[in-house]
């Protein structure tokens, strides 16, 4: 496994907040040369520590006023294929994340919608009709914070 030094940790923390700045600007903030910064980022990417990059958009300003988390239980009457469920749920544009979990529910979905009536439409037409979908629990997101984690 990759070993991180103090500079790597600071670099990761900075990139998790803002990965849009140039390696030159980033390096100056961390006291590194531009090539050294680039090499460190490359190493973190190659080790898979930086999984991807994400464009952060203000959902509300784009007209998506509602985010709902759904806990979905598969109905296990007959044989349900997890692959079929996963393929179908992944294809729904309003579904932003799909996690397979263990516990009270089988899947956890993050769904965006314009408003509550729009959410109801997505729920009825798209989610409830998924192959194998059983009991569904909905919780409307009020606030969200992402923390730096143990870096």
């Amino acid at each position, binding site marked *: *496994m*990759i070993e*991180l030094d103090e500079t790597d940790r600071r670099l*990761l923390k900075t*990139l*998790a*907040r*803002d*990965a*849009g700045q140039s390696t030159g600007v980033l390096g100056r903030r961390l006291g590194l040369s531009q090539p050294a910064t680039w090499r460190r980022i490359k190493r973190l990417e190659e*080790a*898979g*520590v*930086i*999984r*991807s*990059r*994400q*464009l*952060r*958009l*203000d959902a509300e*300003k*784009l007209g*998506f006023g509602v985010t709902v*988390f759904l*806990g979905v239980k598969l109905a296990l009457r007959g044989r349900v294929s997890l692959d079929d469920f*996963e393929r179908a*749920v*992944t294809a729904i*544009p*309003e*579904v*932003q*994340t*799909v*996690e*397979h*979990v*263990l*516990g*009270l*529910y089988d*899947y*956890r979905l*993050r769904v*965006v919608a314009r408003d509550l009536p729009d959410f109801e439409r997505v729920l009825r037409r798209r989610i409830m009709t998924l192959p194998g979908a059983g009991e569904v*629990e*909905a*919780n*409307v*997101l*009020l*606030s*969200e*914070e*992402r*923390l730096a*984690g*143990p870096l």
Partner: protein
Amino acid sequence: MLDDADRRLLRYWQAEPSLSQGELAERAGMTTGRAVRRIARMQELGIVQGVSAVIDWAALGYAVEVSLRITLDKTQGNAFDAFMAEARKVPEVIELQTFLGRVDVRLSIIARDMAHYQQIYRASILTLPHISEIEALMHVARIKASEGLPL
């Protein structure tokens, strides 16, 4: 507020957040100058917040991820604020969300292994104030993680 060209830019950018503004302009079928102006405007309006690196905690040795769904004792007037303030201090908490629904708060926790998780759970989670109920969902797999908006 946004026209089709803006949305087109956001769609391509969202799908590939590492694209340069030049590449983005090319995909969206416009000149770089036009794309740059449109992007700058969307940044000024706060629609585009930036690009972040997504950390893969498993690559850093955090193999366990648990979602804790917590109900708070709302007879205590300051239950939410007191709980949130203390939960933010736990380094292994990487996400904090509040909800309207059956669940009040959800924490995402990472740990090196199950023994480590148990230690965090006992020492840092059960000691958080005003908890009335906890349910745990253990993360198995991430099927979709784009968090893109259906623009």
